[in-house]
């Protein structure tokens, strides 16, 4: 029997301020909990809206929103909650879990990682190649300009197909978002100065800068970085070891696309692995030889819309899951209930214990009815 856990705390992130706040909130409410929502202070207009509007529509005694920064977050973490749901970075995820440990509060951590996209469909048909490119572009710069936990972080493609891929991507980017940084449209900006600098710094390394094959322009005043593609930046550079969370797309080339499995396994488990391929054997290998929260074949992002699939990470990309009924479950305690009658009574259960009783119960456990009969008829002895 599912039962609400009680009073739950939800931390939501700034990149999808409404979805990431209200999605778990819906789960918590449907499971019957009271909720405190603490949205990220990096999206101030959205927070103000949530703080003002939620009390107008929802039960203010049971559902509250609190605005504030890291200090408020820290203070909240010192209190005892029945569950904490956190969406954000692994660094803060550790702090949340450590604080929860003091009260033995269960947590769900929705983190991130470097979500790779394996591209193996460029040499199928031109239309499939085009769709692949569209889905990649849509999956990289579509979600908050790459600032999403499930955004494509980098691509893996066979070296002989790299230039074809880059051309397709360039065409698609121009069509979707504009010819250059001045005419950029239909795309988010970088959330703040700090993130902007972080991303710009990823490109500072001369070897990384040299690998830019498209884009690279930035506008500090408007906090805009245009869609940027890099070809084979050094594997030990920061852009290839940290989660990018921005509009920079490295393409890593391989001699053989099957090598992508080892490449992905050399990094920590991502939230999603995207694989554009029609090779059924390769699909099976990807499924069984890699580990990630989710695997999506031949598309990007849409798994988020599939309510019957649990959404969550594994390893460094987090633990716990939600969406659909999983949200309800995540905020519930599944209480087991056993009803017994008073009859029949199994006497051998009780002391004083004898060999006979021991044998009886053993046989009963194994449903060895024949043995039981023999025992009762004195034909069987221990």
């Amino acid at each position: 029997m599912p039962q609400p856990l009680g009073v739950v705390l939800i931390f939501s992130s700034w990149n999808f301020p409404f979805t990431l706040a209200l999605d778990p909130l819906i789960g918590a409410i449907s499971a019957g909990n009271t909720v405190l929502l603490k949205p990220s202070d990096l999206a101030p207009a959205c927070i103000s809206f949530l703080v003002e509007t939620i009390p107008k529509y929802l039960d203010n005694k049971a559902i509250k929103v609190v605005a504030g920064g890291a200090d408020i977050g820290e203070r909240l973490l010192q209190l005892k909650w029945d569950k904490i749901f956190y969406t954000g970075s692994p660094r803060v995820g550790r702090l949340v879990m450590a604080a929860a440990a003091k009260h033995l509060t269960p947590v769900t951590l929705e983190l991130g990682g470097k979500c790779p996209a394996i591209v193996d469909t460029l040499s199928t048909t031109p239309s499939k190649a085009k769709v692949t490119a569209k889905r990649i572009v849509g999956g990289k710069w579509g979600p908050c300009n790459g600032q999403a936990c499930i955004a494509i972080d980098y691509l893996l493609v066979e070296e002989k197909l790299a230039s074809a891929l880059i051309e397709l991507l360039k065409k698609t980017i121009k069509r979707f978002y504009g010819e250059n940084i001045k005419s950029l449209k239909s795309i988010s900006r970088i959330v703040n100065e700090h993130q902007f600098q972080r991303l710009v710094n990823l490109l500072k390394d001369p070897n990384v800068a040299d690998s830019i094959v498209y884009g690279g322009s930035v506008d500090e005043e408007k906090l805009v970085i245009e869609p940027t593609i890099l070809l084979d930046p050094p594997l030990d550079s920061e852009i290839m070891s940290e989660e990018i969370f921005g509009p920079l797309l490295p393409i890593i080339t391989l001699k053989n696309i099957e090598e992508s499995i080892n490449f992905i396994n050399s990094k920590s488990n991502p939230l999603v692995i995207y694989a554009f391929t029609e090779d059924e054997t390769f699909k099976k290998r990807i499924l069984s030889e890699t580990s990630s929260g989710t695997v999506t074949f031949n598309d990007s992002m849409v798994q988020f819309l599939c309510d019957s699939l649990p959404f969550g990470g594994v390893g460094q990309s987090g633990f716990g899951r939600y969406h659909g009924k999983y949200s309800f479950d995540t905020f519930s305690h599944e209480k087991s209930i056993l009803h017994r009658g008073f009859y029949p009574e199994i006497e051998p259960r009780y002391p004083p214990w004898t060999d006979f009783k021991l044998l009886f119960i053993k046989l009963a456990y194994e449903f060895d009815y024949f043995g039981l009969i023999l025992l009762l008829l004195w034909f069987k002895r221990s």
Partner: protein
Amino acid sequence: MLMENKAENKAVFDAESANEVVKELRDSFVTGKTKSYRWRVTQLKAMLKMLDENEPQIVAALRDDLSKPEFESSLYEIQIVNNLCRLALKEMNHWMMPEKAKTSLTTFPSSAEIVSEPLGVVLVISAWNYPFLSLDPVVGAISAGNAIVLKPSEMAPASSSLLAKLVADYLDSSCIKVVEGAVPETSALLEQKWDKILYTGNGRVARIVMAAAAKHLTPVVLELGGKSPVIVVSDINLKVATRRIIAGKWGCNNGQACVSPDYIITTKDYATKLVDSFKCELERFYGKDPLESKDLSRIVNSDHFDRLSKLIDEEKVSSKIVHGGQRNEKNLQIAPTILLDVPVNSLIMKEEIFGPLLPIITVDKVEQSFDLIHSSGGKPLAAYLFTNNKKLKRKFVETVSAGGLVVNDTAVHLAIHSLPFGGVGESGMGSYHGKFSFDAFSHKKAVLYRGFAGDAFLRYPPYTPGKLTLLQALLSGSIVGIIRALLGWFWA
């Protein structure tokens, strides 16, 4: 001199040794060995053989550590693990299969499934009261395809070393290891990065385990305890109820079990009858002098003996003993002891007893017992109710929050494979047993298959109001909405 030091260093299990163990297991895991169905089957069969061929030794070890009666060792340790292995062998194929998931219009055309994969290298830290039952989560971890370190409790040393020997002899040492030791060894293990930790024990250490796990973002299952209450209503078959409470209390390691009834709540007018029934049945089970009975475990060690003695020696509590109270410090024995109406703020009513002491608290009306349970602070691992009254049963099931509830019996829910076994709040998080063990040690990977047909141009920029309306309609799954949007689109 140098040789001696070397030997000494070898015996110390420190962070470096722990790191080496984890590395070895991770290397084994990466080869894919533990993922294979055949490996899992081989290990489970080997475990069955291990239990079967060593039952006398296991019983002897448990007798050394806990004076555990053979009946309990055979049934509550060996037989349970045996059954779990059999269940896993029978069902594993089915558990390992991907589970189809429904897809809707929003991702059409697509198909979805959920694939179970092992988490990797897992750590199982077990408790001293049921040392061989620590194989319970190990069975789950094996069936899910993981590499495992088992750290048995040092407070049951004979069992710990027998486990270490048997596991090394029967199971695949490159993937399943036992690490013995106490606090230093456990700390060394906890510094490492695990893919899951399952800890059985108390709340204090559980906090340490979870804090250590937090450093590596390792998910945990914590199987703790609590004060499991028993509500006894006057409308029942008293003899059967009493026996079942005794079986769950003193019949389970002499009250030293996480699901043992901790205290009883009953109505004032029923208390005397209940106490008399207990006296009668306790004598029938354990004889006039329970300290002579072979069917009772002893207290595990002198620390716990002193702790329990303190509980009954407390002023205002010692006078409430209505049965039992006999002790033998040398043999670490405490007889089944019943107390009536101890003060609610006494130590025996604040801490989990984990021993052969059973306080009975009386209330005027049965309904007050629910308030008493709520106010006792901390949700217990189990809660029990004895009644034939349907309304009370419903109220109990709906309002009492605990890991698991049993009506008209005690402790037996552990044997039901289809019930998840775990706590809530202070009694723990996560659950296992049966398929829940398999799930606890698996990652349920979501998989979405999409095709190339019918790419929805609607989702791509340039974004227009028309696209937005149509997409919103599609996402909402409303056919009417979709038609309206389409019409709006074409007529725009």
